[in-house]
């Protein structure tokens, strides 16, 4: 029965596909593109922003400026942009974790969407550790994240929660405040 044969063939191909896909992950191939991907741009803007932020004395003494990614990392390879860079004389390092305790020595904490349900708790911990919190989900700035990215007409914008920055003991240059939308809470 050719019909059944087609069915069986398709069936076995799928199983084979799933098994193969499992065993041999495909390389992430960067196709040539003129348009910039969302997270490449976010990584670049984040890097630029770091130059306008001043941390307290204690942080500045650390050998590295560490950027922590909390939760499901949306950047992929885009954070490669931070490799071999320095900010304020400190080389930049990147760490990733699902637990804030593993990231407590970071200067910057990028709070991903997956952490949306526990933002308030994260903010409290982060501000006591003088971290610059950065997010990219709607409403994060109102909930205490210091810099929150959003998209408008496919362009990258950010909100700044000045009060939250003060609570973390950070000062942000007025040049940046002019470019972003200031959120009061």
């Amino acid at each position, binding site marked *: 029965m050719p019909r059944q044969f087609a069915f069986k063939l398709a069936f076995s191909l799928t199983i084979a596909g799933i098994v193969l896909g499992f065993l041999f992950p495909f390389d992430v191939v960067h196709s040539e593109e003129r348009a910039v991907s969302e997270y490449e741009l976010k990584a670049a*803007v984040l890097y*630029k922003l770091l130059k306008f932020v001043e941390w307290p004395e204690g942080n500045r003494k650390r050998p590295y400026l560490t950027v922590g990614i909390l939760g499901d990392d949306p950047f992929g390879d885009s954070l490669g942009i931070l490799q071999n860079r320095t900010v304020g004389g400190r080389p930049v390092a990147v760490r990733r974790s699902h637990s804030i305790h593993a990231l407590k020595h970071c200067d910057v904490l990028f709070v991903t969407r997956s952490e949306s349900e526990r933002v308030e708790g994260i903010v409290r911990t982060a501000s006591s550790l003088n971290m610059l919190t950065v997010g990219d989900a709607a409403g994060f700035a109102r909930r205490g994240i210091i810099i929150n990215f959003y998209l408008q007409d496919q362009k990258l914008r950010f909100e700044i929660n000045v009060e939250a920055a003060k609570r973390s003991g950070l000062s942000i240059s007025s040049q940046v405040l002019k*470019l972003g939308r200031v959120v009061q809470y």
Partner: protein
Amino acid sequence: MKNGRDGNRFIFIVKSSLFRIVLAALLLFAFPAGARQNPDDADSDLTTKSLEELMKIEVDTVYGASRYEQKVTRAPASVSIVTAQDIRHYGYRTLADILSGLRDFYISNDRNYSYVGSRGFSRPGDYNTRYLLMVDGHRLNDSIYEQAAIGTDFPVDVDLIERVEVIRGPSSSLYGTNALLGVINVLTKQGGQVDGLELSGEAGTESTFKGRVTYGGYFEKRKANILISGTKHRSRGRDELFYPEFNSSDTNFGIVQKGDGDAHAQVFLNGAWGFLRLQGLFASREKDIPTAAWGTIFNQAGTRSVDDRGYMDFRFDRTCDSGLSLLARLYYDYYRYDGHYAFPGALNRDRAIGESRGVELKVSKVLLDRHRLVAGVEYTNYFRQDQINGDEYPHNEYLNDQRSTLQWAAYLQDEIMLLPGLILNLGVRFDHYGTFGDTASPRLALIYVPWEDTHVKLLYGEAFRAPSVYELYYSDGNVTSKANPGLQPEKIASSELVLEQYLAREMKLTASLFRNTIKNLIALRMDASDGLLVFRNVDKVENTGISMELEKRWDNGIRGRIAYTCQESENRTDGSGLAVSPRHLVKIHLQVPFLDERLMLSLEEQYVDSRQTIHGTAAAPYFLTNLTLSGRGWVPGLEGSVSLYNAFDERYGDPASQEHRQDTIEQDGRGMRVKLTCRF
């Protein structure tokens, strides 16, 4: 059946060549074209730019946001999402249009309602009761027939949809009844997304006109979002329809004239203020039935169905500082059906009114950093479930059944991060019904993310559908049908293995293997002892299949998607094949932008394999081609589109249900629509 053998061979040739085309296309898709680019080049480009310059760059957001949205990747199911942009680009007119473009789904229509089937399972005459339809989390299946209205009777204008989330497989562990084969959650736009006054008008073949007025705004100071919208639609339908089954001199030689009209009106309100949200809608639709269903007089005006739907949903939704998130909801639902049937010698009216109110409480919290708990309770009082049937002239009442039911439920779900990249999702819901008693629905899902671009999901779930009031109590005074208050719920057990793989930044493969066993299916049967029709828990259906989907976006902005589903279904009670169960389904989508995306050409191809009718004959397989050319950005605030549906005028019919003398109901040929929207 003169041409039966040739016909079969032809179908087989079509099928096998189709299969090869699909395979070839899948392989083609799998080898990404274009050279590798050294990522460092792009990076250094970006960092040399100033902050101001960076903020002028446009980003590509096709995957950006949705790809990592926790909801999709961590969802313990195979999920598809259709966005407002897709709806605009593909010229979708109804929710049925949206669903028919999705992997695994197919739609049929009998010129009264639209019916959804998926993965080879659909029951002729089923009012989509095995799908849960929600608007912003509010249940829309009515309280009499449990119908999910997806055609022109769906009460929300598709232009107001922000996105549609289609969750395949059983979800009763969270949502209760109807969530047997899938959940369709329609999320609507917020006032701020419209931001001003919007007027939209469209005109199409068969004298179809639709107009919409929407006002939306976000008031920053008061943190208030308001959206108000009204829609009016009218279509004369086909001027002439031909049904060969009625080709005789006393039934106008099978020709129905002007019996296919469709008119509906809708109002919609969506307001949010801080943590509070109020949503309400009302919609009424009137459809002429031209098919002489239920033995009504052929080619006589007056046989029609009227469906009114409305609800109010008031909610408080807030996430507290402790990370505890709380949702409290109060709701009221209204449904009215008014069917007019012109029988020889009498005008029959079949009416139903359903009213209900209820409350839901839901909390979610993260515990010990690795448990995401969701718990909730729901209570609904269906305080009015009336069914009335009688003749107008001469007056005669056959049924006046008044009911009310209480229903409550409690559910708990825990998403446990066992190891980094390994998530276990456990859920169970307990439902109590005043009619048949208690039922429990568990779900178990293991989600494995070995590396960032790979998601493997192993899913098992059980779900139920409570018998509707219509199935329990409808009778016409024991003339042809009788009630069966002893009906039990239908049950499904479903297993599925899903692989979601991002092959390159611009490509995604989804593959799924599924197996469903549906027991206690409620079907209309004839009682041999008295010859009356009655609903019984009789059938058991098993189906197995695979489905695959590949999405790709090319460098020049072209987007494509190809989906293939192959399944086999069997009725285990008698070993017969299943009616309306296409073995193969293919969906192809392609979007080509021109002139900086100011013009977009969108192509949709649907192939639906032959489907068995209830009389054992076959409805021929068909290919549908829909084309839409849409434009925006030429004049500020103005956008427009021209759509061609069934561009090659393919002649095809959908299998009809028991109430029709027709074996298949012929569907629309080529159609056109022009649409213009302006914003102030």
